[in-house]
């Protein structure tokens, strides 16, 4: 629903999570791009103040300079660096040169060759998911289809036993959706929900890492277990460990705590983002039947359409950076210590970069979207996500050609993940 009065800058509140769940955020980002591409929001007791970047070029500018705009001050708007214990201990919240070192421990598992080798398995999983769904007349597209592929793939790569996959689904929902009542384990309390999910994941992966014999079996958890070095203090005790990462343990070493953080990162990044790209992509195709017809008629367009789905959906809504020195972005002075938030869905609708940016076009070329970020922290799993999306949409178009919405969708209450929680569908 559009309001009668036009949106004004004084009305913009990117911390209003209900708006993310229920309104069209593109209206907000469009206004910011036009009138305030580097936009300051004052801090609150729960959020430090922050600059919002909404133009493509500004977001690239920051992404190109990971030293000036660091990640170790937290990558989510909601992270309070004064109280967070995980910063700098996970790859995603590490800065150069430590980040590159952590990344090289696992990036061989995500190379084009490794990913290509997974294609037959990914197709097999996809086909069985869709065959099972098609036995019913109706489904929740998210839980019954979209969530299942990336969950199976990342759990398979990590060597997580099948009996635990549902637990992983629940834990990542709680860890990444703590502001949503559906996932809160303590009603109304995001911090407690997150803390509990983190503690359960820490206990789970601590156990899994200790059971793995080392680098023998080749799954990602075993590779990380093989990097372990003894921790001089209480193992994995994140509240007391004063360890400066990478010091006094040799370059190759990962503390037990760091290995656990790595596992948590892999399971979260591996299943939430791709899930939402699948759900959001299906929704876009349902809402644009002419585009869906074009794609159904020529499935060789699927790889191009997947890029448009990534641009359109942009499942990760933001990454935050913290200025490590006084700097300037698009002419706006930024002071050391200030937080800068990169709104990727906005960059991906930037009128200066994408002709007819608000048109969903499955044949769009070129399409240099920033859905996976750019530079130092470019999504490690981009190739894997692309493959999952290509296979899923290729099979979806063939096997469930008449899929339609069967009720209202429910979006995640979050300004970090553009999530769809539920999407009722029927199969014609």
């Amino acid at each position: 629903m559009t309001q009668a009065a036009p949106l004004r800058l004084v009305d913009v509140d990117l911390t209003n999570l209900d708006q993310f769940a229920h309104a069209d955020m593109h209206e907000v980002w469009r206004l910011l791009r036009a009138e305030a591409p580097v936009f300051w929001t004052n801090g609150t007791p729960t959020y430090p103040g922050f600059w919002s970047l909404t133009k493509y070029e500004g977001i690239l500018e920051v992404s190109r300079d990971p030293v000036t705009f660091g990640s170790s001050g937290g990558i989510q708007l909601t992270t309070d660096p004064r109280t967070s214990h995980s910063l700098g201990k996970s790859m995603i919240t590490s800065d150069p040169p430590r980040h590159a070192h952590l990344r090289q421990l696992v990036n061989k598992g995500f190379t084009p060759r490794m990913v290509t080798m997974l294609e037959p398995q990914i197709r097999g999983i996809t086909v069985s998911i869709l065959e099972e769904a098609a036995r019913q007349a109706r489904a929740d597209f998210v839980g019954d289809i979209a969530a299942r592929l990336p969950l199976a793939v990342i759990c398979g790569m990590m060597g997580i036993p099948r009996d635990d996959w549902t637990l992983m689904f629940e834990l990542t929902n709680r860890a990444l959706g703590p502001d949503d009542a559906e996932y809160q384990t303590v009603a109304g309390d995001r911090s407690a929900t997150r803390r509990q999910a983190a503690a359960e994941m820490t206990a789970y992966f601590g156990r899994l890492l200790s059971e793995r014999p080392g680098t023998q079996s080749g799954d990602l958890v075993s590779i990380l277990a093989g990097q372990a070095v003894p921790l001089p203090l209480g193992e994995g005790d994140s509240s007391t460990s004063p360890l400066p990462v990478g010091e006094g343990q040799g370059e190759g070493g990962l503390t037990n705590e760091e290995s656990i953080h790595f596992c948590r990162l892999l399971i979260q990044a591996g299943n939430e983002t791709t899930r939402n790209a699948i759900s959001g992509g299906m929704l876009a195709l349902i809402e644009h039947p002419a585009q869906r017809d074009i794609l159904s008629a020529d499935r060789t367009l699927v790889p191009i359409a997947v890029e448009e789905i990534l641009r359109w959906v942009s499942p990760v809504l933001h990454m935050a950076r913290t200025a490590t020195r006084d700097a300037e972005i698009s002419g706006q002075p930024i002071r050391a210590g200030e937080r800068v938030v990169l709104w990727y869905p906005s960059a991906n609708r930037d009128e200066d970069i994408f002709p007819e940016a608000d048109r969903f076009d499955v044949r769009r070329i070129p399409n240099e979207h920033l859905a996976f970020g750019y530079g130092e922290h470019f999504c490690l799993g981009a190739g894997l996500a692309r493959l999952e999306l290509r296979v899923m949409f290729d099979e979806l178009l063939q096997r469930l050609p008449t899929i339609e919405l069967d009720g209202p969708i429910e979006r995640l209450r979050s300004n970090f993940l553009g999530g769809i929680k539920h999407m009722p569908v029927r199969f014609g």
Partner: protein
Amino acid sequence: MKATVDPSRCEGNARCIGVAPGVFELGDDDQAHVRAGDIAEELRPLMEQAARLCPRQAISLEGQKAQS
């Protein structure tokens, strides 16, 4: 003009190969490599595009720049 791919950054996304298949190739190590030592100056716009599109900022260009 010379182009180099930083092996500590390249993760085989192969965007450079899409832009300039005559210049870059994907090696057995799943990383992009530069085929030729010296690259014709007229390919500079293409090389700059390849460097810009590399999502990992792994490509650097050296040698004479066009007059500005």
